[in-house]
């Protein structure tokens, strides 16, 4: 792998209603989301894409399908890039999870069998490793907001913040080279063992 285009999925029904949605398959895209996914395909029309990567969530797979429509590109699912497990917040308002997350430590799992941000970061590192190990030279990876924020920041040497300080737009690609992805995977895994947010140090 040499280059990936990493993007958050397009607007899904759960986003439109502000619901935290971890469990697969989850809901699909809205009409606006389908437009965003087509737009993503147009942005990447001149780019070589040799592999499509989605998570187990329908909203990522639909985004990938629409963005790569008309291209003969193999697709895989990397479950390690799935949405963070919201625990008992799953199915409720995302704002409630964010309120909890904004005041709790990175290593604390979400109540009700959910994940901590540290556990999610370690999982994202593993997911990145799986993409990096592929023999294809380029990929479009459709993931979720937290994963995209953590990976893009880590590629620049930034450890996670307690809340996403900058929003992650739907279906907007981030171009990352393999070297940056290796850095991101290393940093996320290291951080997951000593998980303190950069804005709480």
């Amino acid at each position, binding site marked *: 792998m040499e280059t990936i285009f990493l993007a958050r999925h397009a607007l899904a029904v759960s986003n439109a209603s502000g619901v935290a949605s971890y469990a697969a398959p989850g809901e699909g895209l809205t009409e606006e989301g389908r437009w965003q996914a087509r737009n993503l395909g147009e942005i990447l029309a001149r780019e070589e894409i040799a592999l499509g990567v989605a998570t187990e969530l329908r909203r990522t797979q639909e985004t990938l399908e629409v963005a790569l429509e008309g291209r003969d590109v193999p697709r895989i699912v990397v479950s*390690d890039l799935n949405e963070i497990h919201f625990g008992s917040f799953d199915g409720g308002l995302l704002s409630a999870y964010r309120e909890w997350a904004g005041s709790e430590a990175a*290593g604390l799992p979400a109540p009700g069998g959910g994940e901590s941000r*540290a*556990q999610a970061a*370690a*999982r994202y*590192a*593993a997911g990145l*490793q*799986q993409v*990096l*190990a592929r023999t294809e030279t380029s990929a479009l990876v459709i993931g979720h907001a937290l994963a995209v924020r953590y990976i893009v920041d*880590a590629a*620049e*040497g*930034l*450890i996670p913040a307690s809340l996403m300080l900058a929003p992650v737009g739907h279906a907007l690609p981030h171009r990352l080279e393999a*070297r940056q992805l*290796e*850095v991101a*995977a*290393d*940093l996320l*895994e*290291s*951080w*997951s*063992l*000593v*998980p*303190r947010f950069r804005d709480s*140090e």
Partner: protein
Amino acid sequence: MAAKIIDPSRDQILRFCAVDPVERVFLEDVARRGQGRFVGLAADGELQALCHVGVNAVPSGVGCGAFAREVARVSPRMLIGEAHAVSELWDAVRPRLSRPREDRPGQPVFVIRGAPSEGGTGLRAAEADDLELLVPACAAAHEQEIGVDPLRRDPEGFRWRTRTQIDEGRSWLWVEDGVIRFKVEASAWTPSAVQLQQVWVDPAARRRGYGARGLRDLCRLLLGRVPAVCLFVRAENHPAIRLYETVGMEHVLDYRSVLL
């Protein structure tokens, strides 16, 4: 009862690590933090092998070839750990991974359990103000051990790592006239052992015995808190090996690293 692959509990991991707390110091440290992704091979509820599955795969115990599927799925960039465990895993997973960039067998692990004589140094725990002095030294030591300059590869991330080591009380140094006469970090720390990494003396201060004196004082300090201090080294790093032997450290086992 046949052994089977399991998602091990913290208690199972700690019982397994207690069997060889020096060899398994990294695995125990990660488990005690409540973090990390582990897979175990268990019979009758007890682990006979364990593997941390991440960017690096760290196997230990007997039968590590059983972890081939889990390790191949994550495609780690390095297998590292006790030599036999790594060899078992590598033999089983090799067909599913890329050709290795480098294979480092026979990396000696040294341990010391009895306090050596005093070094009479100014060794102290690093503080936040030491960061600027330590970052280039840590980077040079890292490049010496790993072969990659972290300040070219990931400068911000490496600064974070160095600062975190200081914050966690896992970094020590001896400085005189702005020259690092000795510095070292702990890469793992459990109630049973501390594992050291990145032993370093500034080039301007080498060949004067500062490294041995600094390491003696650090071992004395740490052995007041834990029963064993250990580290591993590249087999071809003869000056470092001589240093560890001079201090009284004993070669007790070998690690192997397969870089992918």
